[in-house]
């Protein structure tokens, strides 16, 4: 058996699933006009699947900050944080993140994915236990595997199951790291964080919250779900990304434990990869200022969420359980979902098509993500288009 033989099944699946036309998993955005519009397959489209929750990719002050640094400091750092890849901007951003969260320490990584890989696999090791939500992001699963810790999964958002699992650990629960997400990336539902924090306290465990999709979105100051439900003091480690609300690329971990700083010596994904470019760091610093100083963006975002979620609900679509900037439409089969995705694109709207195992519970999803930058007119057009196509999308074959 040759090395590449196992790819044959993937090739076959691709051929049967995608006999012709555009491949939904290899979309090229040929032109990008704004944070909500671009060109795909020769056509101008509304972008409604880009995680650009505050629309900051085109924020004038973020662009200006990046442009200035690009001219002054060049295109890249060409080195890892541990060697030559820490410029003054990287350090400044860490201080600003720590201040933003009211935490002792913050570490900046190159992406959110490698933040999880590095932080989780350094914090937990053989002899420790990680208790993770079943719907956790791939980077969390991979990190757990890398860590060598015992890996225990609890049913998504199921507090009875989480408690059962913590109780069964006995004394080991004080070496257990519970990992959950603020807003779950596929269905847009929130973790029941107040209950999770109470269980963490009760069993003397540790708590990490991945606020990738909730930072900038939830909480009075945009710090995420922990701020929104008032349990920040119970969270030991917060991880997040610069690639969603902050409109760039990179990741971070913050903690109330000053020991976090030691992870700089142990995280392989910090030590052995190049740091974010200086211009990226400048745009993120500016975006963080915007998140703090412009709460009206969050107000606008949630108005848009209400318009989209309620509108789709009224049209009779089966959605994720809670209104959130991620609005997932459940479709009955893979074929229907693919058909719907193409039909929507032809009408000038881009959303994400998500199949299992990326989608939880065997679901086939059209995943929309909404932005503060979407106009009411764009959302009305999205709603009108989905309503028109609904009979075709959901009818039995």
């Amino acid at each position, binding site marked *: 058996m040759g090395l590449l033989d196992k790819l044959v099944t993937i090739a076959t699946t691709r051929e049967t699933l995608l006999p012709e036309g555009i491949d939904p998993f290899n979309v090229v955005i040929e032109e990008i006009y704004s944070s909500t519009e671009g060109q795909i397959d020769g056509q101008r489209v509304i972008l409604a699947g880009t995680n650009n929750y505050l629309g900051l990719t085109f924020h004038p002050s973020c662009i200006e900050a990046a442009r200035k640094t690009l001219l002054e400091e060049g295109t890249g750092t060409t080195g890892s944080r541990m060697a030559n890849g820490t410029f003054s901007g990287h350090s400044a951003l860490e201080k600003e993140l720590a201040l933003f969260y009211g935490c002792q320490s913050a570490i900046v990584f190159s992406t959110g994915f490698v933040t999880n890989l590095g932080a989780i696999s350094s914090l937990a090791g053989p002899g420790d236990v990680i208790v993770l939500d079943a719907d956790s992001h791939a980077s969390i699963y991979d990190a757990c595997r890398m860590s060598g810790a015992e*890996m*225990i999964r609890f049913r998504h958002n199921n507090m009875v199951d989480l408690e059962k*699992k913590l109780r069964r650990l006995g004394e080991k629960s004080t070496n257990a790291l519970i990992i959950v997400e603020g807003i779950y990336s596929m269905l847009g539902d929130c973790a029941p964080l107040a209950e999770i924090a109470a269980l963490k306290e009760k069993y003397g465990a540790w708590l990490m919250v991945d606020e990738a999709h909730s930072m900038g979105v939830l909480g009075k100051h945009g710090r995420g779900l922990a701020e929104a439900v008032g349990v920040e003091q119970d969270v030991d480690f917060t991880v997040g990304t610069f690639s969603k609300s902050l409109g760039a690329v990179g990741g971070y971990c913050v903690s109330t434990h000053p020991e976090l700083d030691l992870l700089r010596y142990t995280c392989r994904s910090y030590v052995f990869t190049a740091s974010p470019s200086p211009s990226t760091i400048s745009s993120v610093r500016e975006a963080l200022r915007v998140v703090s100083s412009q709460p009206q963006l969050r107000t606008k975002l949630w108005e848009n969420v209400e318009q989209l979620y309620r509108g789709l609900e009224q049209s009779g679509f089966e959605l994720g359980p809670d209104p959130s900037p991620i609005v997932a439409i459940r479709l009955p089969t893979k074929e229907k979902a693919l058909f719907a995705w193409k039909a929507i694109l032809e009408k000038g709207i881009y959303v994400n098509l998500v199949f299992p195992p990326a989608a939880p*519970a065997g679901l086939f999803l059209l995943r929309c993500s909404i932005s503060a930058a979407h106009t009411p007119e764009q959302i009305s057009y999205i709603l009108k288009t989905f309503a028109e196509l609904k009979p075709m999308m959901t009818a039995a074959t």
Partner: protein
Amino acid sequence: MATSQYDTIFQQIEVLLQEHAQLQVPIQDDTDLINDLGFDSLKLMEMLEDVEDIFDITYPLNDLANLHTVKDFVLQIQQITGGE
């Protein structure tokens, strides 16, 4: 003693596997969960949730790396439940 415990677990597992398997084949010690019974990761997780409920245990995901056959599975559950 150990054999009978093995057999008891085997019988409970047999019912569960038949319920969740994609392919219906007779279940024996050397039956492979993926190749013979057609389990994919999603079906496997659903089945593991039932196993956890029925035996009142936590099945660590680390054990999945060594789970191939029905015999592996029974021995793993035996070990988790504290048997020989």
